[in-house]
């Protein structure tokens, strides 16, 4: 913590950056913080409650953040992968941001588990995290924690995949039915950066805008597809969802598909091209007659 605050202060003092985006104590938890003064920098924290993916503040739709000046962003493993995704997709230039990597111990979420304080458990996504310590960063602070423990996302994907098709549909259609189409999943996502989202277009209207099952299914399928090969598994869409739709499982399944078919894992190396938009002449086509 000391290390992080001193680094933030140093960067601000040198005027290398004008704002350090991190977390601060707020209420009973933490919230994203925009430190522009030394006093604000001294309030920054990082621990197992810092779930927010701050890379979302880097995408070009957030013009109000860009106006604050050159940012330094505190990134966990998943946040660094999201920043790499933005660089890969030409939405961010590496030199326009200072990335402060933190050795992520894995996040805690609500839900009882043995051994963790205050009715908490490791987030499933953190159990399945491919890389908790970022490599795409200018500075690296913090200490390694114990290995997160729990079932992980793959187990949930497998459990669903093992069900008969009708039961899978029952599961997902009842989940999608709860959707109120607030698009919080899109707004919070660091990689949903289109100026104008497909779902907001009305001529032609590909996705019906009312919270009716028809449009809901189309929206969730389209959202998941547009993140295939781009999703970094930060789980922010699911956290932001007021209806509790398990979007992480859907995303995890598609990332698994991309991994198996095209050998692509969304790493924090922006030089590896995204699998969609690329192709190989010998891509599998077992499903085509």
């Amino acid at each position: 913590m000391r290390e992080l605050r001193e680094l933030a202060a140093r960067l601000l003092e040198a005027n290398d950056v004008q704002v350090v985006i991190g977390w601060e104590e707020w209420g009973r938890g933490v919230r994203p913080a925009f430190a522009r003064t030394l006093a604000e920098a001294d309030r920054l924290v990082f621990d197992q409650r810092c779930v927010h993916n701050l890379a979302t503040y880097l995408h070009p739709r957030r013009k109000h953040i860009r106006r604050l000046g050159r940012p330094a962003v505190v990134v966990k493993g998943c946040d660094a992968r999201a920043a790499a995704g933005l660089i890969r997709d030409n939405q961010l230039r590496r030199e326009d941001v200072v990335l402060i990597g933190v050795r992520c111990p894995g996040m805690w979420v609500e839900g009882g588990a043995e051994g963790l304080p205050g009715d908490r458990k490791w987030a499933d996504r953190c159990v399945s995290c491919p890389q908790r310590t970022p490599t795409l960063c200018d500075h690296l602070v913090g200490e390694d924690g114990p290995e997160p423990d729990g079932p992980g996302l793959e187990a949930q994907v497998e459990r669903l995949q093992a069900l008969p098709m009708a039961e899978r549909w029952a599961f997902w259609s009842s989940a999608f039915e709860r959707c109120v189409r607030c698009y919080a999943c899109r707004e919070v996502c660091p990689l949903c950066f289109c100026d104008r989202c497909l779902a907001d277009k009305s001529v032609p209207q590909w996705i019906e805008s009312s919270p009716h099952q028809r449009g809901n299914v189309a929206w969730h399928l389209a959202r998941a597809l547009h993140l295939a090969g781009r999703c970094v598994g930060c789980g922010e869409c699911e956290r932001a969802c007021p209806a509790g739709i398990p979007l992480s499982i859907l995303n995890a399944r598609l990332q698994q598909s991309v991994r198996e078919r095209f050998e692509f894992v969304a790493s924090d190396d922006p030089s590896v091209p995204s699998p969609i938009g690329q192709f190989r002449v010998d891509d599998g086509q077992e499903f085509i007659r």
Partner: protein
Amino acid sequence: MAAFQPKITAFVCNWCTYTGADLAGTSRLQMAPEVRIIRLPCTGRIDPLFIIKAFERGADGVIVSGCHPADCHYNHGNYHARRRFAIFRDLLDFVGIDPRRVIFSWVSASEGGKWRDVVDGATATIRELGPCRTDTGDEGQGRLACAS
């Protein structure tokens, strides 16, 4: 009750499959009449949303067909499409929409016979799977693809 008459939408590319279907017609090949063709410039133009929309609007099955690999009029539209559809199929399967309802094929301009086989095969498959169940309450419009 009358026998189930499936509605099948075919998204085909202008250069190969559409011409192939035309050849099947001019060659007077007999084939199942349940398929409605929508012609697009390339399979690369076919967004998975087109397929979702077809199901929303009452299709029981969808055919997607274009040029064979290496034959694309635009050089590699079909390669891009192939990646997209591979993932789309996995997604359909995972959410419990029967991927057998979406039939992918490569049919060239000279393969009128193959087009007939694709159409007949698709019709037989969809007949077997039956109509898409209505999950959304309202008849006709509002049908959604789901498990057979």
